[in-house]
């Protein structure tokens, strides 16, 4: 089957990585995975994903955001769409950048933020929408 696009899933929870892979592959995407920011960076030097699913809290509380900011400053990856996932939306809401809607403002390096557990339908719809907007041509 022709891949609809290449997605990089970065999460330190192996269950989330595994299920995301199943769901995404089941919906026609090609998936690469990494379990932390460092691994993700080294993977990025080899593969060019069309989108990244990124967990916020990994080894450190903000590892995901750190990686996202780093990529936005990198000319090669600044246009890589990122969807952030967190089991800890409360923290982002109360301590990070205030209410949810502001999180998606310009200053945030992500396209969208989803709370875990994921609503698969919404996630897939969001990915479709981003790909459509970016006119990502299916690779392979």
């Amino acid at each position, binding site marked *: 089957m022709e891949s609809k696009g290449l997605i990089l899933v970065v999460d330190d929870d192996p*269950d989330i990585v595994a*299920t995301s892979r*199943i*769901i995404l592959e089941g919906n026609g995407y090609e998936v690469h995975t990494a379990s932390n920011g460092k691994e993700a960076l080294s993977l990025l030097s080899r593969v060019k994903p069309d989108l990244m699913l990124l967990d916020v809290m990994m080894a450190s509380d903000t590892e995901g955001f750190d990686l996202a900011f780093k990529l936005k400053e990198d000319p090669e990856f600044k246009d890589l769409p990122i969807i952030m996932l967190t089991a800890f939306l409360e923290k982002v809401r*109360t301590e990070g950048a205030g209410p949810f809607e502001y999180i998606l403002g310009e200053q945030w390096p992500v396209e969208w933020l989803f709370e875990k*557990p*994921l609503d698969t339908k919404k996630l897939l719809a969001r990915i479709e929408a981003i790909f459509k907007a970016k006119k990502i041509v299916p690779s392979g």
Partner: protein
Amino acid sequence: MAAVVQSPDLRAAWGELHEFSWRPVRIRWWAALGFLAAVLGMRAAGAVFPAWPFVLAVLFLLAGNIVIYRTFARRKDLRPRSARELHQLVSWQAAVDGIALWAVTYWSGGVISPLAAGFLLPVLFVSLLLPARTAYAYCGIVLSALGLTALAELWGWLPHQSVYFNGAELVPAAHPLRTLTFLGVLGTVALGTAALAGSATCTFRRQVQDLDRLRETEAVFSRRLQSIFSILETIGSVRDLHRVLETAVAEVAGVMQVKGASVKLLSDDCKFLRYEAAFGLPDTMIQEKVVEVERSPLNKRIIEGEPFVTGQVTAREMFQFGETLSAARIQSVLFVPLNLQGRVIGILGAYCEKPDRFGVEEVNFFRLAAGLVAVALENARAYEAVTTMSHERTWFMMKVAHNLRAPLAGMLSILEVVRDGYLGPVNDDQNEYLRRLDRRARTMLALVNELMALSRNRQRREAEVAATEPAMLARRVQRTFQDKAAEKRITFQVNLPPDLPEVRGRLETVEQLLENLVSNAIKYTPAEGSVEVRFARANGTVRIEVSDTGIGIPAADRPKLFTEFFRAENAKAMDEIGTGLGLAIVKEIVDQLGGRIFMESEEGVGTIFVAHLPIAAAPTG
């Protein structure tokens, strides 16, 4: 007397005496005019005498009075300010009166004229207000002047002046012996008056002095009391350690009327003393912030519990910072240990530019103040510890929340993959049990979320100063729930009149309150029903009404509605995830914001929750 007059707290009694020194100036205008009228009256009655010397004397008196008035009445307050001024004011008046009296006495027949008795008035005046010596000197001058006049008349150097009435001389030229007798009597009476009035005034002055001292003591006492009260107040209201100490040292310096005060605190290992707060001291001194106790015998002694006082900082024991102190021109210092429950935690110091400033009384008061400062300190430290603990607790709860939610999220993801058939077909029975598993996991997730919310609200009890715009609230609640309501085919409406004032509380807090109410309403309203949120202004509050056409709440369950983990019987019977925490959180938030909440419900018909939230205080400049 000078000491009393110069004492800073000169009081009313003494002030009145001073005011008295001004009174003759006012009387003199009328006395002069009265005398003039008497002279004219005498002339009209047929008395024969040269009128011009009397008129001149009166004019002199008036002129003198004008000069005195203009010299001394430059301020609004007519009282003399100093002993010197009082002396001058009284002396000038006595001199003017004396000269005028001498003139009218001489022109009305010489020293034995009845008008000579007038001299008793200035004598009395002088002896009441000026020291005894001055009064006697004044008597001497008056008597000498009269004696010389009598001699001059006797030897023919001055002509005898007479007043005639009906041809008879009113005061005939007297025999020298008679003149002498008269002067003797006048002198005795004058000196007697001076002595009596002088001693009475002297007693009075002493009493005023005593009273003054008493008042000064009382003022000092009251100032100290006030300062103690102020320190106590600070203990109660200020929680920041540094500010408590800053306030305390400023208070202490103020009440003791000294240049500066400082607090040094002992490190936990008792090896170092650090300047924590200072008032009125040069920066260079504070910047040498740390003192090693072992290398400072002076500080060591104080820490061992002994207060230290010196009136000469150049003394040997002050070698440690004598130089800095003399550079700041400080001469007296006083250090007492800060004791807390028998343990020394630091040193309180006072610094003064005057030498030998601190006596036993000051040391005693200072120890008392040190006790209060120590309590304030402990209080602030305790508060700091509580705050830190509360932050740590929040952080801990956050961590717990994340660690509880992460595995649940993983579990739900796996369940979804299986149920959605990604791993192969699932039969109906399997699917049913997986659905049950999914529901239990989601209940647990909701519980974790709401427990976290509850604990967070309890921590946030402190001042909710923020304000929330109802319009923003309405917009957000509409957006949050419109999809969910549509999914269940429930009509969902948010009704907001224009121009509602802001309500008290942070947006997230108030939003959580409303979200819980609306989420319940949608949850327990069957398909095709309706849920409505109405905002309105009511009596200093904003009224938020959430009504539904749901299953209602049984009457028996209503009293327990707002308790944690409680779920109404009919709610439990429904296949909906609920934790029994939603309304407990609502109640918690309403109480915290100072609002009220009511409900009305009929089983099978619907439920209305009405929350009244206080309007946010208008921002003050």
